[in-house]
């Protein structure tokens, strides 16, 4: 048993990788779905085991191929990435049962097995980025997850899915290139690719080569920001989310951007923060205006959007703004708020996109004007949408409230009450766009498109209800979300060269 425990970090990535390879041999969609569900179900077990191990025993280091770091690739699990591993694998495992009907409905029979193969590869890449302690290995996994997600998006029924996937491919490739240029600069000045080792040597290198170190940060920051859709770099996201198959949208919205945010946290707090004084670097100065612009501009764009998937995609850009705002605050409460919102937003957006997928499955449309009265014909689906939507706004008693509470406390502790005010004000815009959907769903006469619709089959309904329930549950019991996020923030801040105040 102990031998297996020691292999857990490797297995976290190897299981979905082998799963993807085997899925490529399967030709039948349903069998491939069963296989992918089985493989996905194994990943949260590994992730929880890792989280428990890290929680009690401190960081784990796994040497790929038996080569010790910094020469070999190291998989390093600490609280931060164990938390993200649990999030990504758990949400994927909850969503998998949903995939069967939804994918069978939206994708041609002979392509379904390939869809599951690509999904498992994407999961491999996301888990790999999260678990690795090696900057270049993270780039490789970033490419694996990105390339497979382009395929997932291009499989959408709408022809525009191809254009959306192409747009994402171009921007995603630029992002990955920026990231690898940044890693290259760090390698030039430190001679290492291992995150911990770079952090150890960067302070000294910065004294000799201050400009390449700063340029490296800029490249890494822009590259990762393209991946996480930070406000002005978000243009790929609405189309990609709108035209991808429903399951792919829900999966990518819940996991892909979150993993990119994790990488940003890693670069800022575990590399640059450890080696240099973050206050002298323009990280917060860049993040504040962009986050606030995202919170307002993307939310307002969501209000004017009539395609519900695009509306939620803009809302995702806005919510990412809250997470990066938490990073910019760089104090205990603010960072906790950012990290806990990473978790909560994954659950909330997962539930919302699954609800839209269910509506698309039954009613055949997600255009707002055609969905009048859908709340009466698909009661459970729309109830889940409303519950998750309230959590998105941050109604007290829901998970979204916890995130915003921590963010506001963080802003007040940093002495920035206008930001606290802006957080509340932008939440009201969420009330407008979610409210608009609720108004159409419940207070309009039943339209022809939804007249014969009913709640989706149980296989689709249960994952949706579980995620909707979770988006309320984590507003009441915050042990796993805010509890862990708080300790993660504490560890990150205590590791800084010049500790964050407050």
């Amino acid at each position: 048993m102990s031998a297996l425990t020691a292999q857990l970090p490797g297995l976290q990535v190897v299981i979905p990788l082998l799963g993807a390879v085997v899925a490529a041999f399967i030709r039948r969609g349903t069998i491939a779905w069963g296989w992918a569900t089985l493989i996905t179900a194994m990943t949260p077990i590994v992730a929880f085991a890792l989280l428990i191990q890290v929680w009690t025993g401190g960081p784990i280091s796994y040497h790929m191929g038996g080569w010790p770091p910094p020469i070999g690739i190291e998989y390093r699990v600490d609280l931060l990435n164990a938390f993200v591993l649990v999030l990504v694998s758990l949400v994927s495992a909850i969503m998998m049962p949903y995939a069967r009907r939804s994918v069978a409905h939206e994708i041609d029979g002979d392509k379904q097995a390939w869809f599951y193969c690509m999904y498992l590869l994407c999961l491999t890449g996301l888990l790999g980025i999260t678990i690795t302690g090696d900057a270049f290995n993270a780039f490789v996994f970033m490419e694996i997850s990105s390339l497979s997600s382009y395929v997932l998006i291009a499989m959408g029924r709408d022809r525009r899915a191809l254009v959306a996937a192409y747009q994402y491919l171009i921007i995603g490739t630029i992002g990955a290139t920026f990231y690898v240029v940044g890693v290259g600069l760090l390698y030039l000045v430190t001679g290492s690719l291992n995150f911990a080792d770079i952090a150890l040597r960067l302070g000294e290198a910065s004294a000799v080569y201050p400009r390449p170190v700063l340029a490296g940060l800029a490249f890494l920051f822009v590259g990762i920001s393209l991946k996480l859709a930070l406000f002005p770099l978000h243009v790929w996201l609405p189309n990609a989310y709108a035209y991808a198959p429903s399951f792919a949208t829900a999966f990518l919205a819940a996991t892909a951007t979150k993993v990119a945010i994790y990488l940003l946290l890693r670069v800022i707090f575990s590399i640059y923060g450890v080696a240099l004084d973050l206050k002298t670097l323009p990280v917060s100065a860049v993040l504040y205006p962009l986050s606030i612009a995202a919170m307002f501009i993307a939310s307002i764009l969501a209000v004017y959007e009539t395609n519900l998937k695009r509306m939620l995609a803009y809302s995702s850009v806005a919510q990412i703004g809250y997470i990066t705002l938490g990073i910019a605050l760089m104090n205990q409460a603010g960072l906790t708020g950012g990290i806990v919102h990473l978790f909560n937003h994954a659950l909330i957006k997962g539930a919302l996109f699954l609800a839209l997928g269910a509506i698309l499955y039954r009613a055949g449309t997600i255009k707002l004007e055609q969905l009048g009265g859908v709340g009466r014909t698909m009661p459970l689906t729309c109830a889940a949408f409303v519950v998750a939507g309230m959590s998105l706004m941050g109604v007290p008693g829901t998970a979204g409230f916890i995130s915003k509470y921590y963010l506001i406390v963080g802003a007040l502790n940093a002495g920035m009450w206008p930001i606290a005010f802006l957080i509340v004000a932008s939440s009201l815009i969420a009330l407008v766009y979610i409210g608009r959907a609720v108004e159409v769903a419940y207070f309009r006469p039943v339209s022809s498109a939804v007249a014969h619709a009913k709640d989706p089959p149980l296989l689709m309904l249960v994952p949706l209800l579980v995620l909707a329930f979770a988006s309320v549950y984590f507003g009441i019991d915050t042990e796993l979300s805010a509890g862990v996020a708080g300790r993660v923030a504490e560890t990150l801040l205590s590791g800084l060269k010049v500790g964050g105040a407050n």
Partner: protein
Amino acid sequence: MKFDLILRVGVKLMIPFMLLFALYVQLHADYGPGGGFQAGVITAGAVIVYALIFGIEEAQRVVPKRLVELLVPLGVLIYAGTGLLGILFGKNFLDYSVLGANPPLARERGILFVEIGVLLTVSSTMVALFYAFSERGR
């Protein structure tokens, strides 16, 4: 180009040497430049030049599409399987030391297996791409 005698005979003469050179690049990589990726590209090049001269149907008779689609994941499976041997014998993933008592020999074996996987995946992926493009609009 189906009736161009010189091209047909010339390519028929070239292909065995291309495949042999691919094997040389594959297996001589311990001592010189090369490896599975380069060898895979040369192998795929042999198939592609055959398809260009003799037509796509003839090429697919020799290298069927189904075979190509099987070889793509098979190569990755060989690579990952070699890595998994490490875990099965109580070491870390991709630890080649479990493949033999003598460490240099064990590593050489590990690299050989892994490179065979790379050869299969790279060559079949290139052929699959070529087939996909050449079948467009038919």
